[in-house]
Structures are given as structure tokens and as C-alpha cells.
């Protein structure tokens, strides 16, 4: 096993955007697509779940763009640090501040838009504006400044080939902007949507065998990741797994503990996305089997309806049977507990989990489950009050 130089920090990047192009991995097809489009000054929208590597890809384009496309291009990077979301004037000012664009700020929105349009058209270089986390511009606080005329100006410049946009966001542009632009604005058509998924198995495997600043994973370690770490093709999981294994070269945890540690670290970062994305990836990596697991919408709906009906039926049955044997209050409490248990059993039966997990009913159910401690307290209080009343 070839170990790293221990004095060196881990070369694996976890939870942060990758800013060093040398450490950026995979996404060749996506990069090629984006650069090909940029040659024609066409815009792209990078979407995908959190922690999948959208910002890293966009930053890679930002850093590599000038090398790939030459000096005729000028790249601008806008993110949460750029203070560009306060107003359209700030937005254009931020672009001018990061480039040689001769934008003159103005007091009103119309003049800002005209000045920006003129500045970009007169700009001697091809301007590529990369907006990381586009969501910042589209929330409800920014309707006025970033309204239809703002997007129309961006679209006009993009269509005329004066300015190309690369934006990153978790949701699609349509989802983000529909409250401002409607569901089918021509603004969306300017972009090609690139949806980032997990690495391909080839990309992930080549990451594992690569020499990362002197760190090379041993075959046994690679095998461990490939066979025991769930969803190792996810870029973050891959980095965490490698980092944990690297750390473990000193601590020598047993395999089970190491895997648990990896899982905990992944959970920490991915939180609830892990569940949703994991399911999705499981279906994807299972290849064609995804269709066999997929139930039609009517079936899904049927199950979603059937379960509450069964639950309520059970509740009523319990109530009917027990009401005679127990006191009223005890019967109600028992029926309630039984109903919850009934629901739980039904929900965790077999493959219904997957279907229900995506159904509206499940979402409602999880909310109810969260309220159980509260219900229990309410039931206790009611029981105490009832006892006191009975005593009196």
C-alpha cells in the first residue's frame, strides 16, 4: 500500500467548491458541451441537486475559459460574495467591477438597463457572465429590480451574441423564474439545460486510481469503496470516502467502523438529500430495472388513498371493539396508538416504501409522525384532566 506523505494535508476537497482546476475531476462531456456552446456565444444553465458539483464545474469553466477560448473572451464570476443581488445597478456594477466593461451606473432601472446594453454591445471582448446560485436573484424580495425588463435585456444580449450566460441553480430556470416570467418565457429558450448527475462509473473509478498529490489508493481500498460504500459515484461521497480511508491509515479503524464513519460524514453533508438522491441513484445504477420499479400514477394514487382508508377503518374497528371493554378515554387512547402503529406497519411494508415516499400522503404522514410527541403530551394532559374530573 502506497501511503501519502503524512505531513501533507488531505488532497480531497469536502463540502467546498473546487477552485483549483487541477483538482477538478470528470465532467468532460459537460465541459465540452459548454465550451462548444461558448464558441458560438450560447448560454447554458447547470442544474442539479446540492453538493453535486455545479459550482465547481462553473468555476472550472471560469478558470479554464480564457485558456480554452482565447483572449477574445472575458469571463466574470458572480456569487454570494459579489454583492450583485441588491439591485440591477449592483448586478451590472459587479460585472463591470470584475471585468473591463465600461458600464455607467444610473439612478433608475431603465437607464441601468440601457447603459448595460450599450456597454456590452460596445465591449471589445466577448463577455461570459457566470452566475453561481442564480436563486439569489429570483426570490420574492427582488421582483422589482430583477423583473421582466431585466431578463429581457439579458436575453437580448445573449441572443445577439454579445454576452453568454452560465448559471447554476438547484431548480430549473423555469421553476425559479416562473413567478416573474411565466411558465414559458422565451428567456428559458436561450439556455441549454445541463443537469448534473453522479459521476459515471468510469469517472469515479478513474478518480480512485488517480494520484492525488502523492496519495494513491491501494487496490484493497479501491475495492472497499467500490463494493462497500453506497453511491460512491456521487462526487462528494467519493471525496469523503477517499479522505476517510486516508485518515484511517493512521487510526486503523475496523472496516465496519470506517464505513460507518463515512456514512455519517456523508449524512452530515447531504442530510435529507441523501435519501432522495440515493433512491434515485439506486434506480439509475440498477440500469434498466428502474422501469420495473416504477408504478403508474394511478397505482401510486390508489395506494396513497387506500392506506388512510385502511388506517381509518382500523381505527373505527378498534374503537368499536374496545369501547365496550374499556372506559371511553382509555378506548380513544388505545385506538389512537393502534392507528399510528397500523399506519407505521403499512408504510414500511415492502416496496410500498418507495412509492409512498414520493407520494403526497407520505409527506403528510411524516409531518404527523413528527407531531407524535406533541400528541402524546396532549393525550397525557387530557388523561390527567379526565382523571381529576372523575375524582371530583
Amino acid at each position: 500500500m502506497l501511503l501519502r506523505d503524512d505531513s501533507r494535508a488531505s488532497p480531497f476537497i469536502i463540502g467546498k467548491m473546487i477552485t483549483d482546476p487541477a483538482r477538478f475531476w470528470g465532467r468532460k462531456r459537460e465541459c465540452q458541451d459548454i465550451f462548444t456552446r461558448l464558441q458560438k456565444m450560447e448560454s447554458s444553465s447547470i442544474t442539479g441537486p446540492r453538493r453535486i458539483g455545479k459550482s465547481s464545474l462553473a468555476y472550472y469553466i471560469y478558470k479554464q475559459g480564457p485558456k480554452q477560448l482565447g483572449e477574445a473572451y472575458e469571463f466574470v464570476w458572480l456569487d454570494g460574495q459579489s454583492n450583485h443581488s441588491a439591485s440591477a445597478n449592483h448586478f451590472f456594477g459587479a460585472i463591470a467591477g470584475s471585468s473591463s466593461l465600461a458600464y455607467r451606473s444610473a439612478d433608475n432601472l431603465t437607464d441601468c438597463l440601457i447603459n448595460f446594453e450599450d456597454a456590452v454591445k460596445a465591449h471589445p471582448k466577448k463577455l461570459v457572465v457566470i452566475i453561481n446560485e442564480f436563486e439569489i436573484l429570483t426570490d420574492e424580495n427582488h421582483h422589482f429590480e430583477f423583473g421582466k425588463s431585466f431578463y429581457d435585456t439579458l436575453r437580448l444580449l445573449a441572443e445577439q451574441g454579445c454576452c453568454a450566460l452560465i448559471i447554476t441553480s438547484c431548480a430549473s430556470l423555469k421553476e425559479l423564474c416562473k413567478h416573474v416570467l411565466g411558465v414559458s418565457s422565451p428567456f428559458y429558450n436561450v439556455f441549454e439545460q445541463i443537469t448534473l448527475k453522479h459521476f459515471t462509473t468510469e469517472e469515479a473509478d478513474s478518480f480512485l486510481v488517480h494520484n492525488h498529490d502523492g496519495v494513491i489508493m491501494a487496490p484493497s481500498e479501491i475495492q472497499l469503496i467500490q463494493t462497500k460504500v453506497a453511491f460512491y459515484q456521487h462526487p462528494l461521497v467519493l471525496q469523503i470516502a477517499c479522505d476517510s480511508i486516508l485518515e484511517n491509515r493512521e487510526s486503523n479503524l475496523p472496516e465496519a467502523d470506517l464505513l460507518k464513519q463515512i456514512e455519517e460524514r456523508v449524512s452530515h453533508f447531504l442530510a435529507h438529500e441523501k435519501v432522495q438522491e440515493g433512491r434515485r441513484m439506486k434506480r439509475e445504477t440498477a440500469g434498466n430495472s428502474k422501469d420495473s420499479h416504477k408504478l403508474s400514477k394511478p397505482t401510486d394514487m390508489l395506494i396513497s388513498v387506500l392506506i388512510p382508508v385502511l388506517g381509518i377503518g382500523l381505527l373505527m374497528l378498534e374503537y368499536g371493539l374496545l369501547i365496550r371493554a374499556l372506559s371511553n378515554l382509555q378506548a380513544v387512547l388505545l385506538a389512537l396508538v393502534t392507528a399510528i402503529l397500523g399506519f407505521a406497519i403499512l408504510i414500511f411494508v415492502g416496496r410500498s416504501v418507495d412509492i409512498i415516499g414520493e407520494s403526497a400522503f407520505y409527506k403528510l404522514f411524516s409531518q404527523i409522525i413528527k407531531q407524535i410527541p406533541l400528541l402524546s403530551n396532549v393525550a397525557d394532559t387530557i388523561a390527567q384532566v379526565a382523571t381529576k374530573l372523575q375524582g371530583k
Partner: protein
Amino acid sequence: MSSEAQIRQLLNSYNSRLHMLQQRQAAMGISTPADVLVEIEQIEAEIASLQAKLAGGKGYNLPAIRDLLTSAFSSEELTELLYDEFPHVYEDVASGMSKSQKIVRLIEYCERRLLMPKLLMAVRQYNPAQYFQYEKQLFLEEPSSETIDERVAQVAPLKKTRLLGNPYVVGNPIQPDNTKVFLGRFDIAKSIISEIRRSGQKPSILLYGRRRMGKTSALLNISRLIRDRNILPVYISGQSVKFHTNIDFCYYMIQAINEQLQQNLINTTVFQQKGFLTRTTFMPNPILTLSEFFTECYRLLELHERYTLLSIDEYEEIDQHMNTSPGNHHERGITRELLLELRDTLQHKPRFMFLFAGTHFLRDLSTVNWSEIFINVKTLHISFLERGDGYKLLTRPVPELRYESTGLIERILDTTGCQPFLLQAIASELINIANSKDTRVVTSQLLDEAIEGTLDEHGTYFDYIWDTECTSSRQQELLRLIAGQAPNVSETMLGSYQDELRDLIRREVLKVQKGFVSFTMPMVMLWMKKNIHIL
């Protein structure tokens, strides 16, 4: 090595270099560096000169060239070649000549003007397979011992090792300098030209078409389409905030006209003198100033015997900024008086013409009655590409990409219904996939991937059809019904959906052929099936 062999070898290496540069140009489109363009021109000139040397005193084998042209082009393609490369011949032959007559006229012209190398170069570019087949017979000399396959093989390895250039444009309109992927639309050009050449008052023209049909591309390429130097096209876009108030509209439109006149070397100092190039001039009464400008500009156009074609793209956006409240709101929107001034100019100054482009008919706009103001409007409908143009769009811009069978090309044309945006999107995706797989052959599997990729990456277009073109849930129901039962949905089966059917046919989502209803773009159906929640 003989001198002739040396020339041939030189020609081969020039051809290889030219091919590589042309690929680069295709990939970079408008951003191709000037040095590349210059080198292409130089090499073309060198090749022409070498070919002339090769022909030597013996000259060209004219019957062979005639045969080459006959087999390389259909009559329509030949007209297009003339239109693109030999406009003088095009003007001569436009009136219903036969194909062979056109060929004779073209050969005569090229021989007289020493343009034979240019002609051969153009044929080589348009139809390389036929060119290589005839190449050895084109000069009055003994053919070399190379076989056609060897010739093609010399070019082929070059293509294999490099990424294919991707000239297709998806999302943005096609700019005038990207001539490779703007095809067809001659019907639009002819209509515009005939309207322009009418004597007396010119009508205004409405270029009407559904979204993504190529209206903006047609407007941007209008001068290439109409090929008349006397007509100066001026493009303005209604979506620009510069055209949303009277003051801004008048000021910025004048700037655009001034710029176009200057580019055509017309002295416009009079505009400067009269203050038309200063925004403050427009503050008190922009419409009056505009009227004065039109009068002044008309004099200049008369003097230089020119016409101005003012293209207003997305004119509906201007309608949305109409201010109909009483009073002169020059700073708060566009007023009816401005439109009346434009109409007045149309009626009395025939050197100005207006071309509106949008997705609505004039009568459909609600803020003001445009059809009452612009009474003499000729509507041109821009729609799906002709099948032949679609075929050329798929095969010509990147000739190195081969289709395993012509059936695959037919499949693309059928699936997209020759909708220009979808054709560009699939063609672009095919090149991206071919590059990523290092192949130059489109197989059925590769095409499946490209269609899938297009559905994923450009879903917003299909969203638009589903959410906007369908104006009611019953229309969506109708699409579901047809998608579920395609291809055997007869018109009579849809008795209760007649209104919806009529509307979706008008919106070019559905079509009726021989009593059967189907999607104009079967890709919409694929998208619906992919998005199962819709079905």
C-alpha cells in the same frame, strides 16, 4: 517527381489544410479569428491558381464540368448555388430556365470571368463525393493513378483525429455570418423583394410565425436573403428597453438608421447638425422630431437611390408598453400617435418600409387596434423548413459526419417535422455525442441518444407547447388522446374536440392529413411519454 505531380501533391496538402481551417471556422462561427479567415482566403486563391496551372494551356474539360454540375446538383440546388456564389448569374437565369440552360450560362460566365477555380471549389464544398468522382476528368490531361477511394482516404484520416466542429446554433438566432446553418426561406425573400419592388406606396409586412420557427434569424439574415444593395435593413428588437417609450423609441431608432446609413458610406452629418443624434432634442416632442427626421432621411435616401427596411422584431413587446391614457406620455410608454406617425411615413415616404415580426397577428393585439392603424399589411408566414432544406441542414454543414443510412436522416426529419429549432438541436447533439465517442458515423443508437439529450436539454420548448400553445385543459386532453392512440386517430373520432383541434392546427401543434390527426412534431409526443405525469 514531375512538375505536374508536384502540383498535385501541393494541391493535396493545400486541400488538407483548407479542410482543417474550414472545420475550425465551422466550430468557431462568428468568433473565427481574422488570421484563420485570411488564411482560408489565401489557400483558396492558391488552390485556384494551382488548378489553373494544372489545366495549363490545355484548359478545362468543359463537357466534364457540365456533367459534374448535372450530377452534383438538382435544379433547385443549382439555383441556390447561383444565389449564394454567383449572384450575377442568378439574376440572369431566374426566369424559368431549364437546369441545363442554367449550367451552360454558369460555365460561360465562369470561363469568361476566369472564375472556373471558384466554381470548382464551390462544387467541391457542396458535393465532395461527386467532385472527387469527376475530379480527374476536369482538366484536359491524363488522369493520375490515384483511385477515388485513395483521394477520399487522404482526407478521411484528417477528420478522424480531430473533434468535429459544431456550427449548429441552438437557442440563439443565427447571425448573418454563420451562413452554413441558415438555409431556405427563399419564399420569404421572394415575397419581400416583390413587395419592395412594387411601385408607389409600400405595404408594411408582418412576418408571422410560432415561437422558435426562425423569425429573428430571418430578420438578421434579411440582407443575405434579399441580396439587394439598394435596400438597407435596420433591425430593432421590441424586447429592448430602448423601445418602450416614445422618446427612447424615436431616439434609438434614429441611431440605428444612422448607423446603417454610415455603414453604407452615406454622409449623415445633416442628422448631427439638426440634433437628431442627441437625446435631449427628443424631450419636448419626440414624434415631431421623428417626423422631421423622416423627412430629412428621405431626402438622403432619394439622393442615393436607397430604401430602408425597418425590421421591428417582437413588435408585441411594443404593444405591451402602449400608454393609452389621455395626454402626451412621451416618457411613460408608447402612444398611439407614434404609430400614426409611422403609418404616415409609410403612406407618404415610399423609401421607408416596415417589417414587423412576432407570434401574433395585428388584429390579436389588445392594447391598441394595430390592424386599424396599419391597414395595408401583407402577412408572410414563417413555418417549418422545407424537407429538402432540412435534409441539407443535416448533411451539409458538417459533411464529415456520415449517417449509417438515409433512413436515419428521414427519421430526424419525421420526428422533428422539420421544425428548425429541433433540427438544429438534434444535429448539434449528434455532433457532441459523436465527438465524445470519437466516431464520425451516426447510427440508430447514437440518434436515439441525441433525441433523448434534446428532450432533456431543451425541455423548455416542449413546456412552452404544453403550457402556452395549449390554452385550455381540453386542448391538453386532446393531445393526450392523440398521443395515446397515435397514429390512428381519425378526425371524425374527435367530434367533441373540434374547436380545440382547429386551434391547435392553427398553432401548428397538430395537423390533419388524409383525415388522420397527428402531431406536426412527433417529438412532442416523445416528450409527453417521457414526462409520464403529463400522460
